[in-house]
């Protein structure tokens, strides 16, 4: 017996130790509950981070687009509408009005890191007999690549874009039977066509994108699509990705553009995340409850089993407060011990799962997110749960009449 340890702690630990099987089982129960919570929470936030990462590396956080073209009804005379059916006009390729001014203004807004003008259109890429419809993005490498990090996804070649160069997705190149250094013919709907040399191949980790995406110089795209000097979108990168919606609204209010944040574009994803988070919270709450009842049940039984011990302790001058604390401490210790093992098991399980489940290309499916804060919160909550669930049994023990307790 350690001299420095208060009596209640010694007694609590001894009682837990003597009730071996009960203690072991309830700790096992808590361990399972905590491990599931740790595993699930970490997995969920890992997948979330992974998804955000993917979304944010392959699309801009805010996209500026030209305003929709709206049809105006024809007025025959005052207040008399000639044609009641308002047809939506075809949305031709339209440039953003005064895009240089918009870009400069947006680039200077606080919180904005970078703004990249882009010309988007479709074209037919031909090489020999093979031809494929592709999306052509005309970009300035110096402004665009910091936003959409194509250089990071290159499998071959380099990410330069001279006027006669093109970068393709790997699957597109395969379909065309083209490889690095080959030339391809690119023809737009306008009838313009150019011959471009492949200087790079990239793999975005998404077959659909790899089959249909290509990058050329902004100027090349403009002349190919017959839109000299025009840009169809401005991609914007910002410092705080979660401020995207707010910034988008500011931009739209101050400029003649439509601004779409990635948050709005991926609204479904956020709804799904929110639903998952609330179901996760619900699961945690119920696991917590069942752990609490488990601890309470074990301690209630322990109070009954130890009523004679309690009576003798009371006869020896142990106060009701001390008895109360002995059982509260047991609850807290059970919660803490179960949580420590549960955290280890949960983290271990996640590490194992992380190494087991890989993407097709062998890269990780989700980043391993084991944050210290999560563990501290889990340990704290489990200890508090233990204390709370011990209150009823502890009060019962403290209230025991020593005479009744000894009589048994």
């Amino acid at each position: 017996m350690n001299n420095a340890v208060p009596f209640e702690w010694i007694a609590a630990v001894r009682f837990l130790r003597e009730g071996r099987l009960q203690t072991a089982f309830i700790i096992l129960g808590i361990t399972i509950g905590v491990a599931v919570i740790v595993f699930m929470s970490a997995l969920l936030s890992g997948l979330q981070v992974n998804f955000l990462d993917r979304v944010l590396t392959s699309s801009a956080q805010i996209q500026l687009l030209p305003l929709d073209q709206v049809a105006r009804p024809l007025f025959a005379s005052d207040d008399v509408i000639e044609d009641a059916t308002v047809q939506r006009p075809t949305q031709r390729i339209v440039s953003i009005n005064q895009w240089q001014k918009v870009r400069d203004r947006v680039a200077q807004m606080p919180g904005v890191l970078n703004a990249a003008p882009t010309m988007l259109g479709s074209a037919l890429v031909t090489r020999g007999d093979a031809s494929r419809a592709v999306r052509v993005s005309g970009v300035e490498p110096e402004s665009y690549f910091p936003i959409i990090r194509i250089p990071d996804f290159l499998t071959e070649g380099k990410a330069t874009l001279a006027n006669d160069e093109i970068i393709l997705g790997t699957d597109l190149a395969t379909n065309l039977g083209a490889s690095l250094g080959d030339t391809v013919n690119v023809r737009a709907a306008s009838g313009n066509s150019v011959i471009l040399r492949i200087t790079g191949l990239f793999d975005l980790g998404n077959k659909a994108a790899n089959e249909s995406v290509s990058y050329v110089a902004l100027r090349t795209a403009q002349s190919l699509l017959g839109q000299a000097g025009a840009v169809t979108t401005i991609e914007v990168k910002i410092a705080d990705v979660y401020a995207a919606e707010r910034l988008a609204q500011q931009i739209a209010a101050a400029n003649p553009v439509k601004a779409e944040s990635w948050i709005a574009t991926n609204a479904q994803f956020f709804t799904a995340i929110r639903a998952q988070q609330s179901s996760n919270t619900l699961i945690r709450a119920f696991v917590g409850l069942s752990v609490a009842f488990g601890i309470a049940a074990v301690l209630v039984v322990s109070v009954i089993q130890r009523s004679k011990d309690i009576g003798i302790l009371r006869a020896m001058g142990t106060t009701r407060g001390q008895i109360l604390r002995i059982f509260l401490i047991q609850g807290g210790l059970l919660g803490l011990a179960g949580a420590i093992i549960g955290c280890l098991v949960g983290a271990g399980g996640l590490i194992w799962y992380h190494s087991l489940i890989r993407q097709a290309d062998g890269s990780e499916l989700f980043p391993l997110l084991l944050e210290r804060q999560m563990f501290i919160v889990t340990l704290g909550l489990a200890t508090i749960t233990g204390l709370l669930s011990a209150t009823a049994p502890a009060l019962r023990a403290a209230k025991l009449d020593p005479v009744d307790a000894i009589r048994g």
Partner: protein
Amino acid sequence: MHLEGIRRSYNIGLPSEIEILHGIDLDLHRGEFLALMGASGSGKSTLLNIIGLLDRPTAGHVFINGIDTASLDDSAITRLRGHAIGFVFQEHHLISAFTALENVMMPMIVDRNGGSDAIRARALGLLAKMGLAHVGDNMSSNMSGGEQQRVAIARALAMQASLILADEPTGNLDSQSADNVFDFMRQLNRDEGTCFLIVTHNLELAQKCDRIITMADGAITPA
């Protein structure tokens, strides 16, 4: 210690209320060695619990050193009990989660809310006096009945209580061990002047005491 008109009833206020003790007056003096005898169910344990401040009488007063214990609250009673009174129970003498030595240290640890080397030394000394120095580290559940009872006596002595209440301390022992335990208590009474009140059914042992108090049906029969 002075008891005056002690009554104790159970199921108070219920139709089946029964009075176990019917007005007991009793004086215990410092250094006395007393036997309490009486038929089973005569109320000996009930009286002992009241004297030991484990239980409160339904009516009457318990005075300790002239203080009416009815005026004390639960924590004061608990403290007084811890310091002034030692118990030796008939059964379940020791707390099984602790070693013999720790059981003896327990009242002192409870009192100071922690152990110390002095406490350990005192407990070892008490065990040695009981001839049990060698079993100190045994878990109490691994000891014989006689050994356990002697450890329980050592524990009752730990706080240097002025009164030791022993409810059939030798009831579960063979006559040889019973004699030994009894002799230990008598020795301690002589050496340290501790007052003992011993419930026993053994007339032979009772006759070695200073005084025999006899109970019948919840009352003390005049000697």
